[in-house]
């Protein structure tokens, strides 16, 4: 659909489009993880696993799913929209890191939305403001991979990784409160 509209987008447009598409892929892929679970199945999980291990399993599964999806969308982007990336290795690393961050945050938000017994709409409301800072950061770092003159700051990458670890910790601490019913 995109490639019908724009044939060879400029680097910055490519970058922006890529991350926004990633965001939507993530919402659609990850939102399902909690919303599609039936009540009975949740009760079954509740009886066999501790909340912390359950949420860790969910995070891990969604992370893997999102990593595969990220690579797939990167492939589709390069097929249809050309490949403006100069430094491929760092960019792929960044895509995986970004996919990881997105999936972690949206997994936790999906858990909240599922407890609120709402559809995916509430998840978008909750998720967009939380994800914007990370998206800005990701776009900023990935801009550097389009231009051989710019350097990629390791501190920015570390900041992203630190955010991800913080989200995991928060999920483990807070999820037991969501689960009790």
């Amino acid at each position, binding site marked *: 659909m995109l490639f019908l509209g724009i044939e060879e987008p400029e680097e910055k447009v490519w970058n922006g489009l890529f991350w926004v598409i990633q965001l939507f892929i993530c919402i659609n892929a990850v939102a399902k993880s909690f919303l599609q679970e039936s009540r009975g199945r949740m009760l079954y999980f509740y009886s066999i696993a501790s909340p912390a291990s359950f949420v860790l399993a969910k995070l891990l599964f969604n992370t893997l799913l999102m990593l595969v999806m990220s690579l797939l969308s990167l492939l589709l982007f390069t097929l249809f929209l050309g490949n403006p990336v100069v430094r491929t290795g760092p960019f792929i690393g960044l895509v995986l890191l970004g996919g990881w961050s997105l999936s972690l*945050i949206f997994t*936790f938000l999906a858990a*909240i939305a599922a*407890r*609120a*017994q*709402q559809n995916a709409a*509430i998840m978008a*409301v*909750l998720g*967009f*403001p*939380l994800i*914007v*800072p*990370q998206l*800005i*950061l990701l776009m*900023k770092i990935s801009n550097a991979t389009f231009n051989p003159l710019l350097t990629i700051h390791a501190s*920015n990458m570390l*900041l992203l990784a630190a*955010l991800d670890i*913080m*989200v995991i910790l*928060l999920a483990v601490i*807070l999820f037991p*409160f*969501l689960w*009790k*019913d």
Partner: protein
Amino acid sequence: MSKTKNYMYKSWWKILGVVLLVYTFVAGLLGKVPNLPALEETVRNLYFHVCMWFAMMILFTISVINGIKYLRTFDIRYDIISRQYATTGIVLGLLGYATGAIWMSYTWADPNNPAFQSFGALAREPKLIGTAIALLIYFAYLVLRDSIADMDKRARISAVYNIFAYAMLFPSIWIVPRLLPSLHPGQEGNPAMNFKDIDASMRIVFYPAVIGWTLLAVWITTIKIRIGLLKEKKWQ
């Protein structure tokens, strides 16, 4: 809960808040300020604009602390407190925006001065976006609260979201805007907390102003909390 009762029904800090604010207005509008290029007399807005943001952050912090308290005790009163501090924080955030817009129109975006940038360029200012995100997070908090009918469940889920959102708020308004180029001061550290940034004559007004605005906001919030507690009592 007796501790909360004590501070809510005492009046000394309310009087202190009013006195500090009167001092802020008198000293802030009449006092001596250093004459800086570009800022000139608008620097007096520091006593209002920056203090609003300080008070907002303090209120959001109190809100989160009460959210954590709720999850530890499951006492519905902490939930009411948490919610009311969040709403007052939003109001202060909007006021901070308003004062910031007035300030900006004199220092960055005066339409009569062709040297200044267009509004479109200013709207991309990272600090503006960051704070807009912060407010949206708390609007989302309110939306989430109102979407759940069951009271205990609402309290629990919104406390969880509150803590999560607060943790994500820090990167959005403290870290990310500092990584991007900006016109806004405070790029290299904490605005107004830095002793080099702020003149001694302004500091004696600035710190009381922060405390004054915070106390006023807490006063407003305690009234709302008391209304909330009364409604809660009537409902039972």
